């Protein structure tokens, strides 16, 4: 049986089909959670913001138009929700590198690799929120640069510029 597209599932949910929403949720619960986690770093804050993002998606179901790709629409809502959270926080609050969950290093990975990852995580935490945002979207969403620009509310060149700056800073950390 051919799987229904994201847009069809969302439309069905808007028409009252709960099973369609469950299906859609199973598809995107992981990627959306990881996107929010990369942005905020803290698991507790991530749970709240993740749940809040889904609440907004659910409330907006009647306004959703099938012509708009669901993935971009969903990430746009989550992006706006998290950015509102950052605006409410104090400017000096920073992402703590230790709070970012990472894969447990296996026995074959050395101490150097672990410290490299920690340094990289710390460097990511020091990035401004908008650069961290485009990086997280690039990693987790699988969206192209044009769509990432639309999700973050900027033009393609601005999105590319943010990504370029983020990459430059992280590359410097890798070299050290």
């Amino acid at each position, binding site marked *: 049986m051919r799987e229904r597209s994201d847009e069809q599932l969302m439309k069905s*949910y808007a028409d*009252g089909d*709960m099973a369609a*929403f*469950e299906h859609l*949720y199973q598809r995107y*619960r*992981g990627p959306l*959670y*990881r996107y929010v*986690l*990369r942005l905020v770093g803290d698991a507790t804050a991530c*749970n709240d913001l*993740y*749940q809040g993002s*889904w*609440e907004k998606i*659910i*409330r907006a*179901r*009647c306004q959703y138009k099938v012509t708009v790709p669901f993935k971009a629409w969903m990430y746009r809502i989550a992006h706006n929700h998290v950015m509102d959270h950052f605006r409410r926080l104090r400017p000096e609050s920073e992402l703590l590198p230790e709070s*970012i*969950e*990472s*894969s*447990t290093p296996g026995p074959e990975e050395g101490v150097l690799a672990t410290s*490299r*990852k920690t340094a*990289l*995580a710390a460097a*990511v935490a020091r990035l401004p929120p908008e650069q961290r945002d485009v*990086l997280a979207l*690039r*990693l*987790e969403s699988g969206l192209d640069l044009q769509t990432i620009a639309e999700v973050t509310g900027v033009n393609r060149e601005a999105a590319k510029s943010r*990504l*370029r700056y*983020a*990459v*430059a800073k*992280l*590359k410097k950390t*890798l070299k050290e």
Partner: protein
Amino acid sequence: MNPIDRKSDHPDERDYEKDLEQVLSAMPALEAAEPPEMVDQAVLNMARRDLELRSRRRPLRWLGAFATAAVVVLSVSIVLQQDPNPPAGQLPPSEQDGIDLEKRKKQEAYGKTDTDISKSSRQDNTPDQPVETAAAPLQEESVQAEKSVARLSASSAEDSYRDVAEDAAEVEDVPAPEEWIERLLLLHQSGLYEKLEEDLAAFKQAYPDHPLPPQLQD
């Protein structure tokens, strides 16, 4: 050549893409990171609750719009049915009824007299019959004459009233006082005193200062 393609051929662009891949591959992977079960349940419950709420609200919303539309239609129809200007050029119903009543009274009175006469003539004995028989035609003649006079006066009064009404319909104005007085005198001569009283009152209202002939002064 497409400007975007030209950019990707640029050495800086190629370097950037290489660096991006390097950084992305070095980034700590978060494959193990998934939302807790409690959060999953909370989201699904929220989705279910929102569906139920909206389905409950739908009939009420429809009802409100329907009720508003019904009230508007009713109000408009009531307003349109109002007729601010009554039709002009017709005799007031009371006047027409008055004429008919007078006519009917006279006819009944003459009719009763006829009946009485015929009854009395039947009841009487034969010896008295010739005298009564002789008197009956005379009475009948006088009755007929009175009838015709009444009819004439009534019809002339009716005609005069019709004229007045027609004038009023044409001109939509109160008749001239002289003309009106003539009508009133005609009513007086015809013996239609009730009608005369009503019209006289109307005349006095329209022309309070106009002098009246002695016959109409009371």
